[in-house]
């Protein structure tokens, strides 16, 4: 076998964090006929890649993410993680929801340790990791606070720590910053980038903000609705680590303008649906 053939064969072997979404359809049965949430979705994500999934509300972003998470199943097609078909939630996956879903009856540290507790792993072994994550994301000293004493941004930071606790190879985030004010959102975008740069894992990040999608991602998947499908995949070639000021550079605004035009051409964006 020649060297190039060897490399090609090697590249065909899926790496640990690779996500392959192949010809996925998803229809929900409904009273007034069935709803097609996803139609022929094909995506291949390399391990360690940060991919934003961008689209107007109702285009199937959450459905796609839930299928990758093994919380729901495609009607057609297949999804694999590291070459293994996903038929139950993968063990090395973390999920961050739009609402932080912190448990009110647990303090911050126990909320972060929840996955460890549910998987019956030794708490004392994971507690240092939990504390380190909280520190990394700016919540040192808040371990014993209760969720209702925290601001929305702090709560979502705790939820991110919880998802990162068991060091997942795959991190799924469904509009995690959608409910936060613009400034907190900027802060969390930077912190998420730091976390990802310090320990590259595959991230699928759902958002309906064009600039957030571009700012964070290596690639942006642009989705359209009725039926939900991927209309374009845009590689973002901006140096990292990115600072907030990157958003004022011509390169960045070009990406944003390009995507906005794309949405306009699909009749989605007439000013309000997608920011």
């Amino acid at each position, binding site marked *: 076998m020649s060297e190039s053939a060897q490399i090609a064969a090697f590249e065909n072997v899926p790496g640990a964090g690779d996500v392959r979404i192949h010809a996925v359809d998803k229809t929900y049965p409904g009273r007034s006929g069935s709803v097609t949430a996803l139609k022929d979705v094909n995506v291949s994500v390399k391990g360690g890649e940060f991919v934003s999934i961008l689209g107007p509300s109702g285009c199937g972003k959450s459905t796609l993410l839930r299928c990758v*998470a093994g919380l729901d199943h495609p009607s057609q097609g297949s999804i694999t993680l590291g070459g293994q078909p996903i038929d139950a*939630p993968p063990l090395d996956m973390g999920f961050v929801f739009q609402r932080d879903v912190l448990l009110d*009856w647990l303090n911050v540290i126990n909320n972060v340790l929840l996955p460890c507790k*549910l998987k019956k792993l030794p708490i004392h072994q994971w507690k240092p990791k939990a504390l380190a994550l909280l520190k990394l994301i700016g919540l040192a000293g808040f371990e014993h606070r*209760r969720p*209702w004493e925290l601001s929305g941004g702090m709560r979502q930071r705790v939820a991110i720590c919880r998802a990162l606790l068991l060091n997942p190879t795959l991190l799924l985030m469904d509009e995690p910053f959608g409910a936060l004010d613009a400034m907190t959102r900027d802060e969390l975008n930077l912190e998420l980038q730091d976390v990802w740069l310090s320990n590259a894992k595959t991230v699928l990040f759902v958002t309906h903000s064009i600039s957030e999608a571009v700012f964070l991602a290596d690639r942006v998947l642009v989705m359209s609705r009725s039926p939900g499908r991927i209309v374009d995949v845009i590689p973002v070639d901006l140096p990292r680590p990115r600072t907030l000021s990157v958003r004022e550079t011509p390169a960045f605004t070009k990406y944003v303008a390009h995507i906005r035009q794309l949405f306009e051409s699909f009749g989605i964006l007439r000013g309000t649906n997608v920011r």
Partner: protein
Amino acid sequence: MYDNSTMETGKRTLSVLLVLVAFLAFWQLAVMLLRPPEYLLPSPVAVAKELGTAPEWYLSHAVRTIGATLLGFAAALGLGFIAAVGIVYSRILENTLYTLLVALNSIPKIALAPLFIIWMGTGLTSKVAVSFTIAVFAIVVDTVLGLRSIDPDALDLFKSVRATPLQILIRLRFPNSLPYLFAGMKVAISLALVGAIAGEFVASQAGLGYVILAAQGSFQTTRVFAAIVLLGVLGTILFFIVEVLEWVVCPWHVSHRERS
């Protein structure tokens, strides 16, 4: 935040006390001016004196009533909670037990008191049974609601780490239902007291309900009032204990409520 809410609670308690004192003063004054016969309306001072003449006697009867109330309440809490879990997890129980409970709830449960006396005699057991019957519905209904009202995202969170159904019950559904359970408990504790008194009214040799009925038979109205005052104090204390427990067990809920 804590200081504020404590101050609010303090203010509210103070205003309730003020209104109560004003009411008693008005009553005392009215009795002193209008001089109704004592068997119609005794003055608050007379009622207080009556309580002072035989405190141990009143206490022993109060203890009987408290015993029946707490036993009935505890049974309602325990069995009601177990029934609620069964109803939430089993279609069959939902269609039989829950449907039956809802249907039977339209019967005024006090009407069942004479039956319990026939079945269980005039002792403590029949009082506990009436107390239980009248209190259990509130527990079951509120607990079922609490176990069911789970944030779908929280359920997904648990499933995303492959939590078992038992873990979902113990670590999610149960703690989530606590605020609902306490709402049910607050209704149930008052109803349990009503049930105990109702049982004592029908047939008994002891308890504040017995005191009221016996005193009424001999027109000792002051004694009736003394027992009623004790019942009022008792009801308030029992309710307050449940409130304090709620504060200790689910502070997040208390804090949400105070904010809104």
